[in-house]
């Protein structure tokens, strides 16, 4: 994230506080960001907080102020491991893990502007796999990921070991529900186009 953006002064007004975006997040995550009183417990227990430029509590704080761009410009949301520790321990029932999901979804829709492309790429490939094969095939996922992310040699040493142990399946079995899966993807896309879902 651009350090200048992170440190940039916030000009607060009804115009600069994007309440609509926050309402979307609240609808998707089924939780109220206003409930948060910034105790910091989420950040205290987050296994990934050290990798984030906005620790979880600050993500909620920025949402309270309608400053979502600052969040999406950073990579914090892509470092969330969805471990649910924050949601579990929150004294105010702010479901932060779901807020993170919502933010990733909205960022995904906006085609970024997140810089954390590896995680995004992995997610994209994962969902493509579901759409194409109905199930996940880790070998394929990993291989394509490495090619697409330009890390051809990543985890190279693991490959043969896993193969030898029968952990990597090379071939997919046919799933008779494949067309149904495709339909689910299509219907959701249509619902979104028609504004029936976020």
């Amino acid at each position, binding site marked *: 994230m651009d350090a200048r953006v992170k440190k940039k002064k916030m000009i607060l007004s009804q115009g600069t506080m994007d309440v609509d975006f926050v309402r979307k997040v609240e609808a998707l995550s089924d939780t109220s960001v206003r409930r948060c009183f910034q105790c910091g417990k989420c950040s205290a227990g987050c296994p990934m907080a050290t990798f984030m430029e906005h620790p979880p509590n600050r993500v909620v704080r920025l949402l309270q102020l309608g400053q979502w761009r600052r969040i999406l410009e950073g990579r914090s949301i892509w470092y969330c*491991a969805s471990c649910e520790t924050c949601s579990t321990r929150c004294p105010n029932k702010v479901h932060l893990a779901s807020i993170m999901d919502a933010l990733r979804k909205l960022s995904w829709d906006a085609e970024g502007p997140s810089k954390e492309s590896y995680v995004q790429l992995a997610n994209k490939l994962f969902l493509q796999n579901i759409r194409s094969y109905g199930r996940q095939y880790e070998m394929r996922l990993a291989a394509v990921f490495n090619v697409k992310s330009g890390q051809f040699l990543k985890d190279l040493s693991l490959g043969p070991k896993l193969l030898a142990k029968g952990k990597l399946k090379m071939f997919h079995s046919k799933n008779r529900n494949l067309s149904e899966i495709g339909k689910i993807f299509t219907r959701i896309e249509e619902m979104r186009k028609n504004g029936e879902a976020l």
Partner: protein
Amino acid sequence: MKKLLNYAYYPGCSLHASAGEYDLSTRELFKALKIGLTEVPDWFCCGATPAHNVDELLSLSLCAKNLELAEKVEGDLAVACAACFSRLKFTQHTLEENATKRKQVEKAIDAPVKLDGKVKHLLEILAGDLGLERLAASVNKPLAGLKVACYYGCLLTRPTDVPNLDCTEAPTIMERVIEAVGAETVAWSHRLECCGANFTLSRPGVVIQLTNAILDSAKAAGADCIMVGCPLCHGNLDIRQKEIEGVYKTNYNLPVFYLTQLVGLSVGLGSGKLGLDAMIVSPMPLLKEKGLL
């Protein structure tokens, strides 16, 4: 042979790939315990973490469809993978609570949502439906002297109210199961910490750091091995263990078992039926030392 119990079985993608030994040992164990297990025909991926991470509606729809498929098989739905378990339970919980989302999902799957079926993790079946007494009665080879560190990870217990497997912050279900078959358990600090989960693909550096802390804690507590109920945790703890040892210049040598492997061992199943040879950190020296093989 009369079955005591019958379940629909949702193995999940990992069990058909990298966690094949989990699938194998589950089927063999249930056979040995005379519990019926029928795989849901043509189940598909629950969406796992990536789906809910960026598209909750997709995640809910995939799970809702799988739940619908499961309805066709007799019995509650038995789930082995902690991630699938979490997603299926989340779906039930969310669609129960939120009418808007429920309507959207019904439209996406073009069918009414069915939430009546019970989703159960293998642990619940062993500790609850079968019961620890009956489980103990099936033991032929008690795991005496084996010190097990039970690792829950994130998704089996969290968040409060959703999986409802056991207490969120101080669960004991894994310990209860494995103690019932004669093993010892160790008290350790990191049994609920996150291993980094699916970052194993995109951010392995993160995973190595987090997983190391877990291995270190288990070792320090005097464990001989680790027991898990999640293929993702298994992947990080087992597959990446050698790599971690290299990075941190240390030596853990902690075999990482699926719970069904250890319980299977106690009821007398052999290495071949438990897929012990598929484990990266070989358990053979340990099991031989303890006289369990």
